[in-house]
């Protein structure tokens, strides 16, 4: 069972590399933000399965932080692009 969790964690984490291709290539900042959201979601999944693999439940809180607040940059950029920050 733990070997299965390790395989799933590695597989979900390795998809970040493909998202980083778009993060490097993206012509506009919005493309980069889309790739960043994908990378954050995949990192959260990899983190959860790594926590199940390592059998440490304290690692899960980091995943909750990443899942709930990694979209803050997106919202700030959207507001900045739409009407300015002030």
């Amino acid at each position, binding site marked *: 069972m733990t070997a299965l969790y390790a395989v799933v964690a590695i597989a979900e984490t390795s998809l970040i590399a*493909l998202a980083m291709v778009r993060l490097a290539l993206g012509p506009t900042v919005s493309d980069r933000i889309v790739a960043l959201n*994908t990378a954050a979601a995949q990192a959260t999944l990899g983190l959860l399965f790594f926590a199940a693999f390592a059998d440490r439940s304290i690692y899960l809180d980091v995943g909750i932080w990443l899942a709930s607040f990694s979209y803050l940059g*997106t919202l700030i950029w959207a507001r900045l692009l*739409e009407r300015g920050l002030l």
Partner: protein
Amino acid sequence: MTTEVIVAILAGVGWVFSLSGVLGIVRMPDVYSRVQYSTKTITMGALPALVALVVGEGPVTQYGGRALVIAALLGVVNPAASHALLRAAYKSGVPQWEGAVRDDARARARKSASR
């Protein structure tokens, strides 16, 4: 043993969805197409993987409970943030792909302006 098989199948389905979503983000031509993969396909890839964790560890353990919390967060925050981003990108004039055939928002704005 059967639990392991179920976890493997659910995680495999989720991984295939995530792979197709990431490939779509790499391959699609403009931001309005890429956001489709960032919201729908990635969420659809995350949910079976989280369900696999819930099945593997049980729903009332720490792993299963937090996997459910993360599933709820991902289902609420990801579409809201992507909607805000795409609305701002459209209003600030990020160009569409040259091969795009229709633009419903611009057509609707023109119709309401001419009326």
